[in-house]
Structure formats: C-alpha cells, structure tokens
C-alpha cells in the first residue's frame, strides 16, 4: 500500500531518471513493471575494474549493472544495502563494492534516483572512492598503490548535446 507522497515521489523519479538516461550515452535504465515503478536495473556503459577470480589479474570491464529498489517506506528509512544491489560484473574490483553489496557511504531517506545513479557511476569509474572505509580492503590497498590508473573512466555521466551538421566539403 503506497501512500500519495511515496507514489508521487516514485513517479517524479521515473520521469527524471528516464530523462537523464535519454541525455546520456553511458546510462541505460530499465524500469521493472509496476505502478508506480519501484525497481530498476541501471547499466553504465563505462569502464571499471574487475579482478579475474582465477589469475587474480586486474583488468577492465566495459559496463556494469546495478539494481535499485525503493521499498514502501523509502521516504522515512533507508538502508543502502537494501536499496542498491550490485548485479554485474560479479568480480568488480573497487573498495566500495563486493557483489551483491555496494556501499555508497551516505544515502539519505528519500534520496532521488538521479542522485543514486550519479553516485553509482562515480563509484564504478573510480571517480569517487572512500579509501579509509572499505568493503573490499584488498581493492582499497591495491588502489592506493595504483593511483596513476585512476579514475578508470573520466567521462561525465551526462554530456552536453552538440548539434553538429556534417556536410560534404565542396571541392575547390
């Protein structure tokens, strides 16, 4: 049973997040069926790090998937482990990620979906790292040694659209 406030919050969030996805060539947002939508899978087409579970080698992955769920009482209480689920790649290599958990640090009650998407993107691309308080201590230690490799992807999530008219140059 969703009250009016939560319902309108979720509806507004869907519109704002889909708008962001439209304006981004990096974000692909899949809302789950529901009225209003409470579950999403966000795919970020951006580079992040993964560790090969067999060889232990650190490599790059071209995208990641994060699950986002808004419980009934999201406007009043919020636990990051409940709201966010790391789906893919399972061996993501980041101090704040240990699948299926992702730790954004501070996630307030009623945080907008758009803000959550920005936070997840910043984490995956290493634009945001909390070295001191890590879920994956090995990744934190590795990252501190390899700061020159970071951030892995420097592109902003939303980029300005530039209208470019391409015409064939006239032969002179």
């Amino acid at each position, binding site marked *: 049973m969703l009250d009016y406030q939560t319902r309108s919050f979720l509806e507004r969030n869907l519109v704002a997040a889909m708008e962001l996805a439209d304006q981004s060539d990096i974000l692909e947002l899949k809302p789950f069926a529901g009225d209003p939508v409470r579950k999403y899978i966000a795919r970020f087409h951006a580079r992040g790090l993964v560790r090969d579970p067999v060889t232990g080698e650190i490599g790059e992955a071209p995208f990641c998937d994060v*699950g986002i769920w808004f419980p009934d009482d999201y406007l009043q209480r919020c636990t990051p482990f409940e709201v966010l689920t790391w789906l893919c790649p399972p061996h993501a290599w980041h101090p704040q990620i240990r699948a299926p958990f992702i730790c954004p640090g501070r996630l307030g009650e009623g945080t907008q979906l758009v803000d959550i998407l920005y936070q997840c993107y910043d984490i995956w691309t290493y634009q945001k790292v909390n070295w001191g308080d890590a879920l994956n201590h090995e990744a934190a230690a590795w990252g501190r040694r390899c700061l020159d490799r970071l951030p892995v992807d420097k592109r902003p999530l939303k980029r300005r659209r530039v209208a470019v008219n391409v015409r064939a140059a006239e032969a002179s």
Partner: protein
Amino acid sequence: MSDTVVIDANAPLIVVGCGNTGSPFAALIPSIPGAGPVLFVDYDSYEAKNLVSQRILPCDVGKPKAAVQARWLRRFGVRATAAFVGRIEDVPWGWLRGGILVSCVDSRGARLYMNQVAWRLGLPLVDVAVDGPDLLARVSVYLSGDDAPCLECAWHEGHYRNLAKEYHCDGSTAATAATNAPSALGALAAGLQAIEVSALLGTGLKAPAVSRQAMFDLRNQTCTVTRFTRNPACRFDHQRWDIRILDVRPEDVALGDVFAEAALSREPSALSLEHRRFTRALTCANGCGRIAIPLRLADRLTARQRLCRLCGERNIAAGFDLVDQLVLTELSAAERRRSLAQLGLRPGDVFTVSAPDRSPVHLQLACNGFAHAPWRKV
C-alpha cells in the same frame, strides 16, 4: 482538542530510552497518580561516564539500562514493571496497544518510528528532547486525529538529511551522538514529561498540551510555546489503523489461511508488516556466497541463518533478494503452507493484508502484553 483527550486510567506507560531523560523520569513514575504498568525499552547498558549525567548508582554500571530502571521501580511497588532489552523497533505492537508512549530517546530514527507506531495504534506520544550545549529542553504531545499534526509534520528536508545514518562499509552504522546534557537538564525534561503524562491520565493539574511544544531555553531563561498544525506535504500518511485481533498462535496458522481469514483470498492480495521485509536468500558479508533459505522476515532470521556457515561472518539479504510484501499469486504451495512462526512472526505482531481496490485489513496476533516481557532481548 486537548480538553477532550480521554486516556484509560492505568494505561501502560511505555518508556523508551533510559538515559539522561528516561532515568529521572523513572524516578517520577511512582508519584504519577494512576500510572499503570510500565515497560522500559532500551538496548544499551550503563557506562561509568553515565554516572554524572544519569540517575544511576555505581553498581548499575555494565547492566542493561531497561532492567536497572525496572528493578528500581519495583521497589516502589509499581505493579507489572517490565524491561525489554532491545530496540523499540523489536517490540511487538501488541505490547504497546492502549498505552502511552513516552519518548526519551536521542535518536531521530527511533523518534520517527515511535511517531508512526503511535499514530497507527492511536497512542498518545509524549516526546522530550534536550540540547546540552545550548541548555534547551522541550516537551511535545501528539495524539492522532483527523486534522491533528504528527511529529513528522514539522520536519523538513534538513531533518531527513540529518536522519541519514553514516553507513560504514562493514555494514555497521555510526552511533548516535551523545547529547552531553547535564543531569539537571535531563531532570527538567523528565519533570515536564511527567506533568504531561499525568495530564493525559486525567490526574494532573492541567489539560495535556496536545499538538503543542513547550521549549525552555535556560541560557536565556525564556520559554517558547509552538502550536503545530497538520502539514499537507508531510511524508507520513497519517493513517490510523483499525486492528483486529487474530486469536491464534503464530505456530498454528498457515500463511495461506491468513488471506482467507482477512476475507481477501482473492488474487492478487498481499501480506506485509510495516517496516519489515521478507527474503528468500542471504549473502555472506565476507563474500563466501549466496544461499537460498525458506521464506522469512529478513530481520528475524534463525540463529543458524544469521551467520555464514563457512566463515562465521554475518549473512545479509541483498536488496534484490528482499520484498516488502508477499503477493499471494507469487507464493508457492509450500510457502502458503508455512506457519506465521516459520516466517518469523511473533505473538503481538501486527500485519496487513491488502488487495487492489479494497480497504486493507490489519490483524494482530494475540499476545499477553508485556507482563511476561523478557529481561533479555527476544
């Protein structure tokens, strides 16, 4: 409205928090005429540093706060005094019905929870707060009603932002900052609270100050009274529940039968417990992997489920493994046959069965109240 408040004489007092305000309030309970049974709720134990700011003895250090205050009150012959060593969120709602909620906590989250429970069950909420550095003490009384304000009505975005706990990546949360209030300030707040409780019981010198807040600024020696009004943009839905008692033990009723009991066996009806989630899978916080478990409340796991069998680390239900309602059509036959106890429900729990276009039905599992409250967390 305040003149028409009628609370049962001998209504139980539920005192939540036994620290700077709660411990002096406990001392005033024997002098409140008509005060009924008392339940103290606090998950914490006294520390040596509390000796200067809370009403305790050196021998109380290291003991659970709720148990210390309950034991102390029993010496004064206050009947049916009990202690619940745990969080207010863990107390079955059936224990609270018909009582007066006395909030002596310093956590906004607990205060928010109490506001919602008080509203759902139609309980009066007497809330106090102190600010040590600024020498402020305030008391407010809330009572559910058609246009009455709730505690959240006066909250704005900043309150919710501050409510956001700092989550450490190991899953722990930062502790609530201590109020650092002198004992005299706590005693003042407790005195104000005792007067309001007395007024609610109809034995005081005045009418209760419902929907009002009296703030005492001791640094400047001023008192400010604020009248609250219902905020149409409040995040809380202000629904008061009409709760029916289901006179069964949770062991004796199957999940599928509950829908029939609520006369909502039509599909797709759903069962939920406010602020609680169900899960079918747990993941080791240490990365050992994910295990499937039979359907259960995520915060009422069995002792075996709580810890990883491989490394002994905590098992946590990840977000996509949680649901906040059980939809009848999505339950397997085996899950429909599971008893409510197997789902983690306890006597006194209140749950809701809802269906589209129908009024939700709120049911409470029968319980004996808190007369038999355990001294340890259940």
